[in-house]
Each structure stands twice: as structure tokens, then as C-alpha cells.
């Protein structure tokens, strides 16, 4: 059946409700809501969430925005926590302690802090063990919850509170880690990079595939942060579009090792289009700093080319 956003929204009630306290213009709530819409209506879900913006804004005692079961334990262990829930499900199902006709799916959410950095070990362990779960990283490119400190997902040159631009510094010195590829190296059945664009089609379809592929699956979702990136709140969807049209955030999926790029822009836009609206890159546009934009562009181009090559090689 062809993807139809109107129909999905009309027929599937939101499992992530209004009343949460995420910022206006944040990419994460729209992402979470859409991912949960990919669940079959009759399926129950247990959501695990790492400490971070999403957790502290959606489950402040005694209120919760989650209509499914939800567990938060700590910052670095959403994957391990969820792996325990999934293990319990397996045995309780096997021993007849849960109804045989009920199905539960397991989804863990973490920001880039809880996923790329402090939670990488827990994630790697859970993925390697092959628990039947989907881990979603909503990557906003810094530790936003604690006030915009750099992470290994922060792009080079970005101005953050622990990689500030100064007399002797041009922002973050290092390029960002490629987490999706690290997950591919775990030989998972399904890994994808996605974003909320074009009526959420890419996000929805990849979520559905990830959730309903047996085994450990991983989604990396770019999730802009108006406070950390410095853009007007109404620009969220536009930025998402620019991220993919500049190939800063390529959309692709890897099924059993085979790469498939799911969006190739007809006209690849220069990276300035993505950088310009964001205050964290403001200094890159000062006279004399043209080299920064060039190096940023070179890196984007190299990564895009690498992806094209991988698609070709793995589909031979």
C-alpha cells in the first residue's frame, strides 16, 4: 500500500501525547511520535529511554506523555535496560506466563550523548546479543539537555559550550563519528539513517521495517535542536530538508549488509545552505574563514562518495 500520511494520522492515534515539555521547533517529539505510529495498532510496546531531553520532558512525575509502557533508568543504559525487558518477554512468553496472542515490540530512544558517547558500550552489547529490539538515536549533535556541550556527533567547527569559538579556537576541532556505520559493523539485519521530511515517509517506512525486522535494528535520526543549533523554531522542517539536499545527512538503509541510498538529491545543494541558518556555524561566514566552509564541504563530499561506493560494492 502506498504511503499516505493523512490516512496514517487518521487511522492510528498518536501514542506519544500532547502535554510534553519539549521545546518548540525541536525535532525529537515529531520523530518519536512518527516512529511509534509505525507500530501495528494492536501491538503493545515497551519504550526505554536514556536520560536526556526526551526523557526529562516527557515523564515528569506524575505525568507521562507515553501511552505504551515506558522505562527510564539512567543515561548510558537504555539499550541494556531494554535488553532485559526483551529477555523477560521471551521467557514469559515461552513459559506461558504472557498471553500467546499478544505481541510486544521493544524500542529504545537515546540522544547522541546517550548513544554515540556514554551509552555506546551498552548499545554495542545489546545489538551484538541480537535482542529483538529497535534502538533509535535522535541525534541533535550535542549534549543539549545539559546546555549544548560537544559530543562525538557534533560536526567539526560547531560552536558549543565545551568547544566554544574563541581567539584560539574555531569551534569543535574534530569531525563527527559515523555511528550508523559502527552499527553496520555489528552485522545487524537492519540499520538506517533517516529524518523527518516529505510527509515523514522515509521515517515511517524505515521505522516500520526496523520495528518489524526480527533481531536488533538501529535507526539514526537527525533531530535539529533550535537552542543548540540556533535557528528560528519555525524552520525545523526546512532544516531537515536542507540536511538531506546538501547530503550532510544522507538517507540510506543497510539490510543484511547491503547499502541502499533512499534519497539522492536531483541537485545537491552547497553546504552553506545548511550551515547559514544556524548560529553555531556563524563564525564560518566571517571574512578569512572561507577555508572552514571548504573543508566542511570536502568532508560532506567525501562521506557522500563513500556511501555511493558502498552502495555499489555491496550490491554487486
Amino acid at each position, binding site marked *: 500500500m502506498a504511503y499516505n500520511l493523512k490516512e496514517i494520522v487518521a487511522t492510528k492515534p498518536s501514542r506519544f501525547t500532547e502535554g510534553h515539555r519539549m521545546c518548540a521547533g525541536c525535532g525529537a517529539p515529531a520523530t518519536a511520535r512518527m516512529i511509534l505510529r509505525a507500530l501495528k495498532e494492536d501491538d*503493545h510496546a515497551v519504550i526505554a529511554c536514556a536520560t536526556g531531553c526526551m526523557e526529562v520532558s516527557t515523564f515528569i512525575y506524575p505525568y507521562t506523555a507515553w501511552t505504551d509502557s515506558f522505562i*527510564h*533508568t*539512567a543515561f548510558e543504559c537504555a539499550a541494556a535496560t531494554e535488553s*532485559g525487558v526483551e529477555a*523477560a518477554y*521471551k*521467557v514469559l512468553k515461552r513459559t506461558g506466563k504472557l498471553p500467546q496472542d*499478544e505481541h510486544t515490540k521493544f524500542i529504545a530512544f537515546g540522544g547522541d550523548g546517550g548513544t554515540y558517547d556514554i551509552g555506546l558500550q*551498552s548499545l554495542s552489547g545489546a545489538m551484538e546479543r541480537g535482542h529483538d529490539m529497535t534502538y533509535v538515536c535522535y541525534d541533535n549533535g550535542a549534549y543539549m539537555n545539559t546546555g549544548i556541550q560537544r559530543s562525538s556527533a557534533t560536526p567539526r567547527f560547531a560552536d558549543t559550550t565545551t568547544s566554544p569559538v574563541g581567539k584560539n579556537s574555531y569551534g569543535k576541532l574534530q569531525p563527527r563519528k559515523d555511528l550508523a556505520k559502527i552499527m553496520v559493523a555489528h552485522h545487524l539485519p537492519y540499520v538506517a539513517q533517516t529524518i523527518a521530511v516529505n510527509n515523514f515517509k522515509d521515517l515511517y517506512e524505515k521505522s516500520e521495517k526496523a520495528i518489524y525486522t526480527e533481531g536488533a535494528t538501529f535507526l539514526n535520526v537527525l533531530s535539529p535542536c533550535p537552542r543548540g543549533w540556533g535557528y528560528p523554531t519555525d524552520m525545523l522542517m526546512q532544516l531537515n530538508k536542507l540536511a538531506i539536499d546538501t547530503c550532510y545527512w544522507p538517507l540510506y538503509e543497510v539490510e543484511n549488509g547491503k547499502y541502499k541510498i533512499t534519497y539522492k538529491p536531483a541537485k545537491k545543494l552547497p553546504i552553506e545552505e545548511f550551515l547559514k541558518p544556524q548560529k553555531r556555524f556563524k563564525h564560518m561566514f566571517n571574512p578569512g574563514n572561507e577555508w572552514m566552509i571548504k573543508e566542511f564541504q570536502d568532508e560532506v563530499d567525501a562521506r557522500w562518495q563513500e556511501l555511493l561506493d558502498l552502495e555499489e560494492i555491496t550490491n554487486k
Partner: protein
Amino acid sequence: MSIRERLSGNEAVAIAMKQINPDVVAAFPITPSTEIPQYFSTFVANGTVDTEFVAVESEHSAMSATIGAEAAGGRAMTATSANGLSLMWEMIYIASSLRLPIVMSLVNRAVSGPLNIHNDHSDAMGVRDSGWIMLFSENNQEAYDNMLMAHRIAEHKDVLLPLMVCQDGFITSHSIENIELVEDDKVKQFVGTYKPEHYLLNKQEPMAIGPLDLQAFLFEHKVQQANAMKNAKKVIEEVAKDFEKMTGRKYSFFEEYKLDDAEIAIVCMNSTAGTTKAVVDKLRLNGIKAGLLKVRVFRPFPAEEIAKSLSHLKAVAVLDKSDSLNAVGGALFEDVTSAMYVNNKNVPMVNYVYGIGGRDTTEKQIESVYNDLSEIVSTGKIDNPYRYLGLRK
């Protein structure tokens, strides 16, 4: 008929876990508790248990997965020692605050650093205020028996707290002793099935667990935890009574060994109690009225009961197998002395930090403590209450 066996402490714990047949065991190897997940894995591999074994990549994940499994509605267990427990530390507090009756075997070992793999109690003492029930075991039999009683205590509706069963690394974990095992069907009946009231996998009643809990509520939630710990005292006694009916083996908050008519006594935990009993017997032959109070239930701390039990003594030595590095004394000493003071019992007391990093504790050393106590009784003087035992000169 109970089953006579010869088992190490680790084997005894593993067998208890097999008989309990938990839903999930998540564990990571660390000396000296490694054998427990090893033995248990073979039970899983041979289909003698229904358990899902999660071979996690760290102890932090072991406790995280155990929390997830227990919150999901399963009975979840783990085992660890020393630095493994240190790495779990963050999750230890979260487990108790989420009121999850997880049961853990803690095979006590010195916490780094420097690195040492042998027994002392610094690992357990590091989590003594984390909201876990803590049971200590003198020998293999007690480690086994405590495991069988653990779930009944932890899962009781008035308690709902995690529980750890401690035993001394190597000294009992790796020593083979005679043991009486309870038959599988009796254990099954005694432990019962786990029926949580609320759990994540209940589709009919989705639940959210682990909120951001701010100024308006956290205080009240902590008091609920504190009350649960108080409630645990009654439950521990009830379960011990049922256990005695089944096995004939009697357990309480602590064991009093020749304490009734004693004039001087030692307070200690775990395997050192065995050595102390031998010394007490020897001293008694010489007419010295020595006694022992062996603490089994360290959390909740039976302060009032201990104070009452020690009140008639002329001098008491508390032995701590961990130094608190606070310039005052060990943790057990502080708890016992505070129990005495609050309950208006005035008995001269001294503290000995001993056995650090697996330093052997001999009968001769224990005897020297009783000699010191006799001297305190005769002189009425305590020069320094914070002492060391077995320290090289």
C-alpha cells in the same frame, strides 16, 4: 529428605538459583563470583532451567538488564563482586528506588585500588546505604539458605526492595563444605511464583517507570523506600520462621553464640564468625566468658535488637572487614555503637579493622582481641578505639 552434598559457596548459590528457576539472569564475570554465572549457564545450556541468560558486556549492563527484566514482570537475578559492584553502583540505587525485588549474590572482595582479588567487605560497605536488603552468610549452607529466603523477603508487598546475599570471596565461595540442600519441589513451593502487581509487559495496564522526580515528590518517595526497609524486619522474621519449619534451620537478624552469660564479645559478619566460634569454645574451656554476635541482617540494621543483646556485656569488640577511611572506624562499628548509644546501653566498645585484601585472620588474632577486651574490663580504659588486627608491623 534433604540432600547431603559437598559444595563450594559458589556452587551452593548456583544450585539455589537453579532451584529458584528465575526468568532472567544477566551477569558479567568477575573473580571470585565468576563461577556462579558459569554454573548457571550450563543449567541454561542443558535446559534444566527456563531462564533467559543475558551475557551482558559489563556489570553496569548486568544491573541495567536485571532492572529491565524485573520491571518487565520477570524474576531477575545476578551475581558480582568488588569492582563489578562498583561499576553497577549507579544502577544499584536505581533498582531500589524503582522498588524492584531483584536478588543478587555478592561474593565479597576488596574494591580496587590497588587491584586485589581477595576477600574483604569494602564492596558491600560501599552500597550499604543504597536501599538494598543485605544478608551476610558465615558459610556455604548459610549462603544457600539466604538465597532460598531472598525472594520471599524482597517480593513481599510491604517490602518490594532488592536484596543481596553476601558471602566471603574464596574463603567460602571456593571452599568445599558439607551442605544440606532442600529438595527442588520444596524450594519451588517455598519460594512461590512471582506475581507483580504492576509490570511493563502487561498490555492491559501500560505503565511508566523511572520518572524525572523533582522537589514536589522525591522526598516522599524516599520515605516510602525507608519505610519499606523498616517493614522488611518483620518479613525477614516471618520468612525465617517458615524456613525453619521446612528445614529445621533457625535464622534471625543475628546469631548469638554463647552470648547469654558472656562478659566479653566480638561482633562480626560472614566467615570470620566461624573462626571466632572456635576461639570462643577454646576460651570457655579456660573459664573465660567469651561470646559472639554474628550479624546476618546488616540492612535493615537491627539496631534495637543488637543493643539489647549486647547490653549485659562488660566490653565489646566490633570487627570490620573494611576500613571506612574516615578517621573514626569501620561501618559496622559505627552502626553498633550508634545503636548502643541511642538505646541507652553503655558498654565499652572497640573497633578492629581486619582481613583487608584477603589478609588471613587466624584464631590467634581473634584470641588477642578477647585478651584486649579482658584488659579493658580489668583496667576500665580504652586508649584508642580504632584499631587494626593482623596488620604487619
